[in-house]
């Protein structure tokens, strides 16, 4: 009996083995993959495109919605829902709206939807975190068949750059179901529609049939939530994920030896900077702030901790944005001079609270701490959860601590979206006030004259260099890991449009 049993077992194993051998090459012969799996570090905060604009949320929802205008892969602003536009006066701009776009519920996208989208996001009661990007718009109206006119308070040069982020939402649907239902079951006019959203696990998008912008490269896209950097990289290596967002420079280096994957990196408009409180504590003294600027070894930070992926910047802005000045030199790295300056200012051994949260790169913060300790300051890191950190950082000068590290992007590629909120008197981020600076950046945001704006920003950055309410450190790189077969070029504004990707 026993021998018969084992003979049967051997036969069974052999059969499975043979079947396995035959089966093995099958996946390679199968039709090209129609599913794309993406690993994101965080879950989508909301699917409502007008409520949240963190990078993970908009990586997903911008594939569900179309924007009024968009940026081409080369960075130029081109039409999307609007086919063309022209200024009728410095404060009035007329958009022609395409008439062949349909929402995913079959209804037609009309100029009324565009007007509704603008009014919804600019309504203060709606409390959109993007409000400050659009509040220069005072009115939106349908002014003809397929025509929408936007009016701004003053001539507003950044309008088009901001409108790149204006997703067009369906008026009739939202008015029928309300904001909460719309967030859970969004309907847009984009290439993909949401078919499933498991909070904290994944969101699944499927291609909209008959999309006006052309055929989608994948039938189905799965965005998975994978918070651990190491796990995202492991998923990529194992082939579980086809593309992963946000990998560390260290992992990028390690991935370079893997033939099945590729590292896609692009310098972004995101600037790594050190905030210095000019209105409270030891850093109230401008000499201390200058000393801090001279104590930081940008190049050392970049080559050691960022694997050379980032590029040094001379101001708190990146060259990917309009207004980046030429000819302004940063304070030179000179620890001896910095130490002497601190001694002269009587700030030797002064305690500087450095506010931060686990959301920021710890190694960079601790390296900065050591660099400042070496020139005679005493930097104390206060690590909090992100919500408490933001509360204090945006609070009064007393609450904001002496230092903080930030990675800033306005997704508008313009100096107005960076130095205005960071340093203008009265802004929640600003712990600094200089009327001359305020005048320059206010003027730069209210003229359409490109040359005059450039000159204003040059003046503004010269003032910032002198006053040092912050130090520009580096232009951050967006680093993605992808299967080698995936063809895609990442952009400086960190857009994640599935339509731009395809299998080779």
């Amino acid at each position, binding site marked *: 009996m026993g021998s018969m049993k084992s003979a049967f077992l051997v036969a069974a194993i052999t059969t499975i083995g043979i079947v396995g051998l035959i089966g093995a090459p099958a996946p390679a012969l199968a039709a090209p993959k129609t599913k794309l799996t993406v690993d994101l570090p965080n879950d989508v905060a909301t699917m409502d495109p007008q409520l949240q604009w963190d990078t993970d949320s908009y990586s997903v929802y911008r594939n569900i919605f179309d924007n009024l205008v968009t940026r081409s892969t080369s960075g130029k602003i081109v039409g999307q829902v609007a086919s063309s536009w022209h200024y009728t006066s410095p404060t009035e701009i007329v958009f022609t709206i395409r008439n062949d776009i349909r929402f995913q519920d079959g209804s037609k996208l009309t100029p009324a939807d565009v007007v509704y989208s603008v009014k919804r996001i600019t309504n203060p009661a709606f409390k959109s975190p993007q409000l400050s990007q659009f509040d220069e718009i005072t009115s939106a109206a349908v002014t003809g068949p397929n025509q929408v006119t936007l009016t701004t308070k003053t001539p507003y040069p950044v309008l088009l750059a901001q409108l790149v982020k204006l997703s067009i939402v369906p008026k009739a649907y939202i008015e029928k179901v309300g904001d909460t239902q719309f967030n859970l079951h969004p309907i847009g006019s984009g290439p993909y529609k949401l078919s499933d959203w498991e909070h904290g696990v994944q969101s699944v998008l499927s291609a909209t049939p008959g999309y006006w912008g052309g055929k989608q490269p994948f039938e189905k896209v799965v965005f998975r939530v994978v918070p*651990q*950097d*190491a796990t995202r*990289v*492991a998923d990529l290596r194992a082939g579980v994920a086809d593309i992963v967002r946000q990998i*560390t420079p*260290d*992992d990028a280096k*390690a991935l370079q030896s893997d033939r099945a994957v590729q590292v896609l990196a692009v310098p972004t408009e995101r600037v790594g900077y050190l905030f210095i409180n000019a209105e409270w504590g030891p850093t109230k003294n401008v000499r201390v702030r200058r000393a801090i600027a001279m104590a930081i070894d940008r190049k*050392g*930070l970049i080559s*050691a*901790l960022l694997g050379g992926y980032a590029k040094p910047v001379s101001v708190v802005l990146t060259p990917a944005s309009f207004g980046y000045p030429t000819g302004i030199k940063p304070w030179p790295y000179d620890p001896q001079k910095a130490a002497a300056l601190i001694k002269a200012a009587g700030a030797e051994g002064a305690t500087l609270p450095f506010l931060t*949260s*686990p959301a920021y790169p*710890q*190694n960079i*913060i*601790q*390296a900065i*701490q*050591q660099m400042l300790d070496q020139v005679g300051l005493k930097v*104390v*890191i*206060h*690590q*909090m*959860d992100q*919500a*408490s950190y933001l509360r204090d950082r945006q609070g009064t000068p007393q609450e904001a601590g002496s230092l903080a590290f930030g990675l800033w992007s306005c997704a508008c590629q313009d100096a107005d979206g960076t130095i205005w909120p960071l340093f203008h008197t009265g802004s929640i981020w600003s712990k600094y006030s200089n009327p001359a600076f305020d005048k320059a950046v206010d003027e730069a945001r209210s003229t359409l004259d490109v040359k005059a704006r450039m000159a204003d920003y040059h003046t503004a950055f010269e003032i910032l260099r002198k006053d040092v309410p912050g130090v520009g450190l580096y232009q951050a790189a967006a680093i993605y890991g992808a299967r080698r077969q995936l063809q895609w070029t990442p952009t400086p504004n960190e857009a994640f449009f599935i339509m731009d990707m395809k299998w080779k």
Partner: protein
Amino acid sequence: MTGRFTPGIAAILGLLAIYVFVAVLAPWIVPHNPLRQILLLRLRPPLTYSPSAGWFLLGTDDVGRDLLSRVVDGARASLMVGALSVSVSLLSGTVFGLLAGWFRGWIAIVVMRIVDIVLSIPAILLAVLTVAVLGPSFANLILVLGLTRWPRYTRVAYAQTLQVATLPYIRAAEMAGAHAPRILLRHILPNIAGPLMVVATTEFGLMILFEAGLSFLGLGIQPPYPSWGSIMSEGQNYVASAWWMTVFPGICLFGVVLCVNLLGDWLRDRLDPRAQSR
């Protein structure tokens, strides 16, 4: 394990003594300054030698600090958190339990309902909230851990006090004119100390793990000062490329928690009168 003093328990005590010894002497025995960064020598594997800086026996971390020095120095923070937070919660929990068990009535009702409430709140949530409100610091960390854990001792102390308070010798002491504080401290406390000590030993390991959890969330020991939890949380992104950053502090944590739990096991048997009479 029986209550007898075996070679096994001697080994455990010995190991714990080494831990304490290393923690106390940390500043004098670390081979490098645990805070000193050498960015050019970051993420080096164990047994790295650099002609300028010397040996890095356990390798270096992500900003080029000596891992061995950080693990040794981190023992201080981790063990101190364990010992201090257990003391705080043991002391406050026992006092409340004793009072509730002795006076009974409305005092017991109030205390035990507070205990129920605190126990029903997830401890990690309460800790995150408290640190968020009070701000992160070593004293607050101890306070938080003490505040969230005292009910465990109160429950035990309360039940034990109720039991002991009805025994004839307590009645006798009362009739002899002894005051409540004297009875509680001299006659009841020694009789309920055994079970409380056992709870304390299991809590000790938990507290160290808890601090590791809070460090992991960025709320425990503040950088750049090391604790085992914070070293591991800094190493979490390098598990694949620099395993040593998480493995070595992990082994230390595992060792001390295991030792203390085994010690608690042994104490329980030793202090249990029935086990001894067998």
